[in-house]
Every structure is written in C-alpha cells, then in structure tokens.
C-alpha cells in the first residue's frame, strides 16, 4: 500500500510538470490556434539559463530564474511577432513545421553554447533539507522536496491563471479572443497584444516547468525538451483548447507513467522493457477513440 501511495504521489508530481508544459500549449492554442512544437525547447533554454546562472555565473537562484524568464519570454514574443504573425492563414502543416524549425534552432543553440554533456540542474534553495518522510521499513513514505514544491507551484500557478483569466482586463480580453476573434476585434481588443501575451505566459510557465523537470531528472542535458513531448498526450487527453483539461490531462499522464513504471517489472515477460514510456500514448489513443476532442475540449462542428 505504501508503495502504491508513493507511486501516486510521484505520479501527481510528475503530472504537475507535464501540466505546466501542457498549460503553455493550451494557452497558445486557445489564443492563436497554433500548436507550438518548440514549447519543449523553450523549457530547455530556461533550464539551461538557470543552470548557467547558478553554476557558471554564480548568480542568486532567483536572479537566474528571472533571467531565464526574461530570455524565454523574449524568444517567444519575438518569434510570435516576427515569424508566426506572417504565417496567419497558412496551412496547419506549415505552421506546425515552422515551430519545429524554432525547436531545432533552440536545441542546437543550447548544444552549441553549452555542449552536449550532462549538467547539474539549478535547484531551488527552498528545497534543501525539506524532504519529508513517514514511517519505517516497507511502510516508509518519502516525499521529496522537489515533488512537493512542484505540486505547490502548480497549484499557485493555476490559481494565478484562474484569477488572471477571470478578473483581469487582459485575461478577459484573451478569453474573448479565444471565443470569437472578430467580435473581440470589434469590441476594441488588441489581438496582437493578446497573441504576444499568450506566448509570454506560455514561455514563462514552460521555464518554471523546465526547472522542476531538470531537478526531477537529476541532471540536465539537451534531451530535456523531448521529455516535454509527453505533454502532448496530456493536452490531447484534456482537449486542445481546455486550460483545466491541460492540468487534469497532465496529472493523468503523470500517474499513468509512474504507475506503469512501478508495476511493469511484475509483467516484464509480457510487456518487455520500457512500457511506461509508451503507456501515456496508449492512454491517449484510447481516449481519442472514445472522445476525439479530449475529455474537456470543445466539440468542433464536424462538417462532413
């Protein structure tokens, strides 16, 4: 039982990281109808800047985080302004590919700047000596400080987003734009600001997710961005355009991965190795069979 609880806890914590990445995807998709494949590499850039800030430039951790946020937000906003805005009305294929182009450039940029080797992740200082453990022996439960802070941070970010979308002027403008772009324009909402804001928020959340993900993985290398690909099943599960769906989807994916990883050893004769890495995709495919628009996504009108 303790083992199960432990796995569930780890799954929720990992799921929160996926949820943070997935939130970025959903916010951009809602605002501008674009799936940003480079989300994972924004996360990578953020995590590397925090590493470099802490270990190479000897900055305070929070200063390094601030720096990382500034850089990733700048990349996202500039990319939206100078590249994506010229792609409005182009086919889905082209838009998807241009974000993959950004993805390749960001990852290669990181490898060229920092090398392909493994780096230590920048760890938040409040995590030191705050691991929590209960019980002894086989009943021992261990909650790592990183997992606890991921969950706390995700809750905080969700509350902040809720307040932002519900009460703030720009949050309302973003929701109006997502609902009906032309009507929003007619009401005097500046769509360009909305787009820029969506990308900025997505980049900032991805950076925070990246910091926790690097600590979770214990080391930082240039493949961190591909871990973020697991946010895709999360957003499909939740529905591409549902913000709360992204969080629920993320947690389901995290749980799926941790639980299969915890129990697959007992079925290794059938499942072989590495089943946990594809379990989220299998869940995603099953959900798509039953609900092609995800658990919380808005049902699109099928025209044919």
């Amino acid at each position: 039982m303790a083992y199960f609880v432990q796995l569930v806890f780890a799954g929720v914590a990992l799921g929160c990281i996926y949820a943070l990445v997935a939130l970025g995807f959903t916010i951009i998709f809602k605002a501008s109808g674009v799936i940003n494949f480079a989300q994972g590499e924004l996360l990578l850039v953020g995590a590397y800047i925090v590493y470099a800030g802490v270990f190479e430039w000897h900055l305070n951790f929070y200063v390094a985080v601030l720096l990382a946020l500034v850089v990733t937000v700048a990349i996202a906003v500039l990319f939206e302004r100078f590249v994506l805005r010229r792609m409005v009305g182009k086919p889905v294929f082209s838009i998807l590919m241009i974000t993959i182009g950004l993805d390749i450039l960001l990852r290669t940029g990181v490898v060229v700047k920092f090398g392909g080797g493994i780096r230590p992740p920048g760890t938040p200082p409040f995590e030191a000596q705050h691991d929590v453990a209960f019980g002894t022996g086989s009943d021992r439960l261990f909650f790592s400080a990183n997992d606890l802070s991921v969950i706390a941070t995700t809750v905080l970010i969700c509350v902040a987003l809720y307040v932002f979308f519900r009460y703030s002027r720009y949050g309302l403008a973003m929701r109006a734009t997502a609902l009906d772009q032309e009507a929003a324009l007619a009401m005097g909402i500046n769509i360009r600001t909305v787009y820029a804001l969506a990308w900025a928020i997505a980049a900032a959340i991805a950076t925070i997710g990246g910091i926790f993900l690097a600590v979770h993985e214990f080391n930082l290398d240039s493949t961190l961005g591909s871990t973020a690909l697991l946010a895709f099943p999360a957003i499909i599960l939740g529905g591409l355009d549902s913000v709360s769906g992204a969080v629920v989807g993320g947690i389901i994916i995290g749980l799926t991965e941790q639980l299969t990883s915890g129990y697959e050893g007992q079925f290794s004769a059938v499942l072989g190795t590495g089943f946990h890495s594809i379990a989220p995709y299998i869940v995603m495919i099953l959900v798509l069979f039953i609900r092609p628009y995800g658990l919380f996504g808005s049902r699109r009108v099928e025209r044919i």
Partner: protein
Amino acid sequence: MSAPPTVGVTPGRRANALRRSWSPRRGLLLAGIVALAIFFSVVTDDWLNVANYTMIFAIAALGLNVLSGYAGQVSLGIAFFMGIGAYTAAGLGSAPPTTPGGPLGLGLSFVIWLPAAGIAAALVGALVGPSALRLRGFYLGIVSLALIFIGQYLFKNARALTGGPQGRSFPKPVIGGVSFADAQGSLLGVLLSRNQLFFLLILIVLVLAAVFVANVARTRAGRAFQAVRDNEVGAAIIGVNLFEAKMGAFVLSSFLAGISGALLASYTGYYIPDNWDLTLSIQFVAAIIVGGVASVWGSIFGAAFVFALPIIIDQFSLLPQSSTSQGLTGGDFNAIVYGVLIVAFLLFEPGGVVGLLRRGQARIRALTQRASKGGAPA
C-alpha cells in the same frame, strides 16, 4: 473535339501525355543522364556514398510528400514505417541464424525482400490509417508522434527480429550472382565497386518511385489527394471519397517509406532501434519543405539538402567531430542550416527550392518574351 493538334500524335506520344510537355525537357533529361554517367564513373567512393544515402532518403521523402505535400496530412510517423520496412527486409533476407537466439532470417532473395519491405509497411499503414485519419491537422500530427514512440518500444522488445536495443545486421542484395556484400562485383563484364553497384540499384529504385509518384499525382488519385488538401468540404462535394483518398495517400507513403528503410538498413549494414526516431521523421519533413512541397523534384532536392550535407561534413571532416565539447559540430551545423532553411522557406518561399527554380524560370521566360515582342506566345 475540334481540329486535331498540328503535330502528328502517335500512340507513343499519347502514352506520354500523362507527363506534360516532354519535349522541352528532353534535352534536360539527356543532360541529366550524361551528368549522372560522368558522376558515376569519375567520382570517388566517398562521393558515391553521399549520393547513395541521398537517393535512399529521397525515396522516403517522396513518400512523405505524397502524404503531406499532395494530400496535406501532417505526419511525423515516417521513421516508424521505415523501421517496419527495414525489419521486414532483415527477417526475410538475412541468412538464417547460425547461433541459437541470433536475429531471425529466412535467407530469401533480394527480389522478394525489397518489395516485401514496402508491402509490409503499406499493410501496417493500412492497419493504422483508419483510426489515425479520422483526425485532422494538429491531432493527426500528435498521434503520429505516438506511432514513433510505440514503434521504438516494439522494435526494442521484438529481440528475435530486431536484435533488441543493440541492433542487428541487415542483408545485402544479391542479384544474379552479384553479391553487394563483396567489395567489388562484376556487372556485364565490368568490375564495379560496392558503392557503384549500390548507386545503380538505388538509382533504379528511385527513378521508378519518382516516375510512379509523378504519374499518380497527375491522375485521378493524385487530383483527389490535392483536392482533399485544399478543401475537404469542396473535395467531398465534387465526389471525392475523403477516406479513400487519405488512405490511398497514407498507404502509398508507407510503402515508399518501407522501401527506403529497407535500402537504408541494407546499405548501412547495421541499425539499432533508436535510429528510427522522431529526429529522422522531422528531417524528412524539413526535406520536403526545403525541397518543395507537392513536388517530385522537391523531394529529391530536399533530401540532398537535409541528408547529404551532414554526410559531406562528416566524411571530409570539415568540422570537429566531438559532440561533448562546446562549439560547432557537423551535426549541429547541419541542424542550424536546416532549422534556418525551414523557417526561411516557409516564410518567404513556401514552394521550396522547386518554387525558387520555377520563379527563376518564369522570370527568364518573361525576359525572353519581352525580347521577342510580337512573336507567337510559347
């Protein structure tokens, strides 16, 4: 029908009518063949190696172009179908295992295992297609991503066939007593190196694939693909069966990917499951964007841009090799080049290299027409 064309139409010309305006291109074609022949007989094995890889990748790029370029369906799953092709080839073509537990092999002939590789990939495509093609746009893109990961898991665990994570060796073609496993082979009395033999073989397969795709694109099926791409509702209204068109494109694309995967693994000799990954798929998408979407030549140019460049850099050690040190390596340089090219082409020339060429051609034509003003239009 009104008055017959002034040029006498022989049955032979009629058959060629599928390919539009052959005659002005004949000179170009001839020049191309001569250039290939010179290339073939003069260059070193290193350059042949570059050409061989480029042509192998061009076959799969053609496949992806059928699906994404002509039919407009986003897919990142092509590496998976290449893997299916490669392992089919290995299972059918490799020599039976000498040690118990060695990777499977039936020792069948090349003329069986190469087509079988394509057919197996096409069958898997037909199996996956119905569920994947219900989805559109981004959804399909993401689900095709799942295909890559599930494929890698299967490849790593199907040890008997794939050799597990450590990989396995792949069969070399043996055609009419000429074995491509030997360093040299004699063809019609001429002694050729292995790379030269492969060059001829791959060239033939590529030409067959290119002519096939070009002709499909110009017939009913190809028109249906393009109609689906441009407007699904419109296509359905004019009587295109959406499901049939998408499935056709998907299966054809998988078939070509399977052939390409089998040739790739056979030519390289050894492959591990990790090689059939997302990066490979993305490189193909980059290739068709850079080369030219919905264009046969575009697939070939694109493969040359994306795949030949790193081999050239590696082979001639133009940049430092190590990937652990900081600084620019060949792979990184290549990634930057095609990353920039993807963004630049999508922004400024969505037609790719082929689009650029067409634009240049149109400009030259405009110039020559202006020069001979008053003359009959071409």
